[in-house]
């Protein structure tokens, strides 16, 4: 059995930890994001914080970065409890954060972005010469060729991430938070980052490395702390734990228990949805694939590689410049082209579930019943009477195991998992037969995850088809019948869900030599 340490390792500690989280609790509405979490981080080490999506990693780091404040517990820096009221206070306390979401401003140049909020001044005037010099220096340390005068809005996602990192390291800080820093980086860039991290470590800095990529944890980090559903699970030295042990700490159960059994009802011959040669713009690759009745298809790959654009152009939210989407009509069994506007797509029986529940998905101030009812109205003209069968809604809520006081409760008061169910349930109530779902279980606890997976599988078994994007490999491997890997906007590989492995998918997602999927299709 492995030894779990919560204490320190004598070889690299000072008497007090550089950062200590003491019984931190944080709630968002009714969601318990962090539940009495205590973790120590030591100077001169790289400390991985890991766990599944929604485990509370980012929330914990947002507290340290001053973005949110804990409801209970405190954070000590070098033994002194501090109140980090805003990002500026955190910066003054010597904490530099490289956020997972890019926080660059598109209308500022690279140099301006790197020094926003701490501009070098010459009397009252911003010292642009010095600012550019410092920015160039930082980018050079990362081996980056990005011009410091470029506007960040013109950079690619990978370049923006490099700028984020460069910005973080220019800060005169002792504690660094790197939140999924490699999400959009290519292999040489990751190498540079690795070099940089080891240099920072040798300078006596503490680095919190947030990731759920096992390779990187084992490669970069000294210690790893695992969170699950907002609770602290364990801390261990990386050298004293192996991959399987870490995964079982993260997931807390076998994969088999998580996912429903794949069905045999998938009918490869019957394409429900046919995407032929769509391209977002004239200089992006064409994408073609089909979705069969009874199938759950996953779009995987590194974040920001174009999965979102693909699913959104099918949903009619992003325009595409060429290509066609055909859907087999339920009544006539004939494939007809769909006008790619959201309203027409929905009319054709395709439902879209966005990743961001709060801003794009739900009507938080409306009741559960009203949220669900909006799905049922889909086929009616606006002038018609809104006939809503409340018994139908009740049945569906019961079936989805939504936990709520009543159907009249505001959706905003529900937990993440229940909100996600409502979002999917809205489409189930409206009789669609294709679901397009971005990150089906982001920010959802494990229990609700299982229920959502079952729900989707049931939907597919009943003759529907589901297309998901997911950044969680376990989800792709466990849930999907087929997995398409996206890189640079193109489909680069296809795997059967039962046969694929994490390594194969990652390889396809990263490698620059993977053969073009569409070309392979043509040959075959």
């Amino acid at each position, binding site marked *: 059995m492995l030894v779990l340490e919560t204490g320190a390792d004598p070889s690299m500690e000072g008497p007090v930890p550089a950062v200590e989280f003491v019984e931190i609790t944080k709630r968002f509405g009714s969601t318990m994001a962090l539940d009495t979490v205590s973790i120590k981080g030591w100077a001169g080490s790289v400390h991985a914080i890991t766990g599944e999506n929604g485990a509370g990693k980012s929330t914990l780091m947002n507290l340290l970065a001053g973005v949110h404040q804990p409801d209970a517990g405190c954070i000590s820096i070098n033994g002194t409890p501090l109140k980090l009221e805003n990002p500026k206070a955190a910066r003054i306390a010597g904490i530099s954060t490289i956020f997972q979401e890019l926080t660059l401003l598109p209308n500022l140049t690279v140099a301006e972005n790197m020094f926003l909020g701490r501009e070098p001044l010459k009397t009252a005037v911003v010292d642009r010469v010095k600012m550019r010099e410092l920015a160039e220096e930082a980018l050079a340390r990362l081996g980056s060729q990005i011009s410091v005068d470029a506007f960040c809005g013109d950079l690619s996602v990978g370049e923006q991430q490099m700028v984020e990192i460069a910005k973080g390291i220019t800060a005169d800080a002792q504690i660094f938070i790197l939140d999924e820093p490699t999400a959009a980086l290519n292999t040489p860039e990751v190498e540079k980052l690795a070099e940089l991290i080891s240099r920072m470590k040798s300078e006596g800095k503490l680095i919190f490395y947030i990731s759920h990529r096992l390779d990187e944890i084992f490669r970069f980090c000294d210690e790893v702390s695992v969170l699950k559903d907002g609770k602290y699970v364990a801390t261990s030295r990386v050298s004293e734990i192996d991959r399987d042990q870490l995964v079982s700490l993260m997931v807390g159960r076998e994969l088999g228990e998580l996912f429903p059994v794949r069905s045999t009802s998938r009918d490869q011959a019957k394409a429900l949805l046919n995407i032929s040669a769509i391209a977002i713009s004239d200089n992006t690759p064409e994408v073609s694939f089909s979705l069969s009745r009874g199938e759950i298809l996953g779009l995987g790959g590194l974040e920001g590689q174009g999965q979102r654009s693909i699913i959104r152009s099918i949903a009619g*939210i992003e325009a595409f410049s060429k290509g066609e989407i055909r859907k087999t009509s339920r009544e006539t069994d004939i494939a007809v082209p769909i006008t790619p506007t959201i*309203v027409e797509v*929905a009319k054709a029986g395709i439902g879209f579930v966005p990743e961001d529940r709060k*801003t794009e998905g739900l*009507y938080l101030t*409306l009741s559960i019943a*009203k949220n669900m009812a909006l799905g049922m*109205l889909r086929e009616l003209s*606006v002038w018609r009477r*809104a006939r809503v069968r409340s018994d139908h809604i009740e049945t569906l809520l019961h079936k989805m195991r939504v936990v709520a006081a009543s159907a009249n409760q505001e959706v905003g008061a529900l937990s993440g998992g229940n909100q996600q169910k409502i979002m999917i349930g809205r489409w189930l109530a409206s009789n669609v037969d294709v679901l397009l779902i971005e990150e089906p279980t982001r920010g959802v606890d494990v229990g609700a995850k299982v229920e959502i997976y079952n729900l989707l599988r049931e939907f597919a078994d009943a003759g529907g088809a589901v297309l998901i994007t997911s950044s969680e490999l376990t989800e792709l491997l466990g849930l999907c019948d087929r997995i398409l890997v996206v890189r640079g906007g193109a489909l680069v590989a296809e795997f059967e869900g039962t046969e694929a492995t994490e390594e194969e998918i990652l390889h396809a997602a990263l490698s620059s030599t993977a053969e073009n999927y569409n070309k392979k299709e043509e040959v075959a």
Partner: protein
Amino acid sequence: MSLSLSQKKGLSLPKPRDLARYIFSLPFAYVGTVLLLLFAYYTRPALLSPLLLLLIIRQAAPLGIVVLGQSLCMRVLSLDLSIGGVIVAVSYILTSGVLPFSEPVLVLICVGFGLMIGSINALLITRLRASSVIVTLAMAMILSGIVISLSQYHAPSDAPEILRYIGQKRIGVFPIALFVWLAVLIPSVIFLRISVFGRYVDAIGANPNAAWTSGIPYIWVVTIVHIMSSLFAVFSGLLLVGFVGVGSIDIGQDLALNSLAAVILGGVTFGSGKGGVIGPTVAAFMLTFSFNLLTSLGLGEPGKLMIQGGIIAVAAIVYATRQAK
């Protein structure tokens, strides 16, 4: 939960506090109307005579009608400030004598004109995604500019007979204008309550992004809302012209701002998906009553403007803070 709390703290405290909280959660207009009536009771009791109250209601009817459109606009996160321009144009069409048609045809032309302006507003707002405030303000500017410069050549004449009848006569003690108001109000309330359209309006107000991604016919709904708002402005203009009796170039100029104030007072806010028709309707009465009260207290136009502005600001701030909780 509040019940269990109150039992712990004893019997005397909780009731007034809960009551206060309940009152605080109501639209401003309800409390405001009661307070105003009380104030009038002590200072100007004459205003509360049934005859005067009915007169005030008649005066409030044009505002009450445009408020229906304005509240719809605000519920779909838009605004319509072109109301004044539409009303001036209606007045010109009806009374300038330029158009050689019979009265019913003129009224029909007005309705068609409303349809057109509403459609243009909607087109600019939904297709070009221009800010509704700017679009409708510019529209008001264009319409009143054209009407005023055209009016230099035609002295306005009397309003059509039928409109004067509707605007000025009464059935029994009740002014006909009140019935017109109710005839527009009641179907609107019912339609919004039971129709798919009403549900969509709520949805867009609650979360426009979600409404968009879930395939609600967003553009169509916003278009209908703006057309309805212009049509309500036309009806209001017909009533006003009849009420005043002659055409005028500054008729209904304060209706756009007043309707905005009334809608905010009536509990409709940007981005909550809440608020109905009754609150703004009560607010329309409240505003008209308060202007009469101010006049009787000797405050003129400046005082009126200041109170209007103050009300909009305070109500908007209070609602914004309430929503933040």
